[in-house]
């Protein structure tokens, strides 16, 4: 426990995490501070590209034996995790079935920013991890959406759902399969793998050296966004907020089991737990808004961005690493 606190304390002394705190404070005192949307999107694309390239470079250096089983596991997790979230939400009577299905999809998918923060946390403590985790993150983003929609369809019954027009359907498919973040992430991964160490040397100052600084700016924005979203948390009610805090460790537990099955090292285990614990707040909301307009965005965005995201950044990530280290010591 004291080890955990020390870890969390050390975490808070990195400029990156402090920038997140700064953003949150700025929003809390209702500052008019605003990162222009274009800058935030530009930073996100940079981070996706850099993290993809780094993962690909790591793969180029390793033997790559565990790629296929890892990705199969990621797909299975993303398909399955929404079922647990849905069962809990219905069990505690927190939401109707359509809203529950929408929320469940968010928790089966992943938050890329949470992953990036966890990677930075591991780097800061010198904990290594496998490049395949980047590919697993990409694989986990979308299957949960399918499960969520199937759950909702069952609830709505046949015929209740408005007929999808062609434009809307094709839009949804694109959202889900060719999501911009995933394309950049996977593309960066492939590039890093293909060009290898000598090719990556050419972009080292941009991709490696200034990475932490770019992350500072991005986390400043995330602090702002998360805290502003937290203002709406009161409207959720106690039961839902409790769900948003309890679901991450539960999903992380499933992640630990999966990591053990794959024979992962400490760092990879912590990252897989983080992926399972995190909830999407960009890709899945966009998909739900198109495919399931009856579900309320005020609920699913606030839960994932206003409750679960800050919980994971402040408490979850150090916790998952502690557990991964403890698991590695116990046979």
């Amino acid at each position, binding site marked *: 426990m004291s080890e955990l606190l020390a870890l969390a304390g050390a975490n808070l002394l990195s400029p990156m995490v402090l920038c997140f705190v700064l953003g949150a404070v700025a929003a809390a005192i209702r500052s008019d501070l605003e990162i222009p*949307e274009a800058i935030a999107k530009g930073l996100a694309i940079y981070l996706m590209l850099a993290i993809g390239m780094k993962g690909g470079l790591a793969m180029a250096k390793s033997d790559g034996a565990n790629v296929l089983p890892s990705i199969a596991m990621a797909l299975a997790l993303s398909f399955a995790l929404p079922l647990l979230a849905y069962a809990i939400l219905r069990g505690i009577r927190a939401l109707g079935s359509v809203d529950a299905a929408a929320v469940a999809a968010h928790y089966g998918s992943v938050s890329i920013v949470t992953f990036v923060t966890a990677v930075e946390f591991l780097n800061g403590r010198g904990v290594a991890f496998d490049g395949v985790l980047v590919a697993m993150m990409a694989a986990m983003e979308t299957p949960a959406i399918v499960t969520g929609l199937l759950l909702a369809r069952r609830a709505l019954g046949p015929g209740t759902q408005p007929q999808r027009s062609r*434009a*809307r359907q094709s839009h949804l498919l694109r959202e889900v399969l060719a999501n911009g973040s995933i394309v950049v992430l996977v593309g960066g991964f492939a590039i890093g793998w293909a060009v290898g160490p000598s090719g990556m040397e050419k972009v080292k100052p941009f991709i490696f050296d200034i990475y932490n600084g770019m992350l500072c700016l991005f986390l400043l924005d995330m602090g702002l966004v998360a805290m502003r979203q937290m203002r709406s948390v009161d409207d959720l009610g106690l039961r839902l907020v409790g769900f948003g805090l309890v679901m991450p460790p539960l999903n992380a537990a499933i992640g630990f089991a999966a990591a053990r099955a794959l024979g992962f090292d400490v760092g990879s285990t912590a990252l897989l737990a983080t992926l399972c614990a995190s909830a999407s707040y*960009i890709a899945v*909301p966009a998909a739900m808004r198109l495919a399931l307009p009856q579900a309320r*965005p005020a609920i699913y*965005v606030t839960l994932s961005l206003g409750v679960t995201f800050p919980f994971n950044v402040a408490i979850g990530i150090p916790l998952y690493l502690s557990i991964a280290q403890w698991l590695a010591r116990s046979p």
Partner: protein
Amino acid sequence: MTVHRRKKIEIVVEAAMLADVVEWLTEHGVKGYTTVPKVSGFGRQGRRQAEDPARVFENVLVIAIAGEETARRILAESVERLRDYAAIVYLSDVEVARPDHF
């Protein structure tokens, strides 16, 4: 110069529905439309503020000039069609110079 009366249809709708609304207007045979992005607002569904990360809270304003009958049919259908979405629809009278354009 003779002027010609047409109806202006204005629709404020959540950005995610833009492609859908445009398809629907086109099915009704409007000859053109104009869209204003990054619009914010307030209505039954509460505050909607453009430029959120997921663009789930962004509205667009769609303007179409069309004949009276087309406009009335669109207004009538809108009730059913946009029921689940953040959206409003209203008509007004306009005068144009080139009747073949609209």
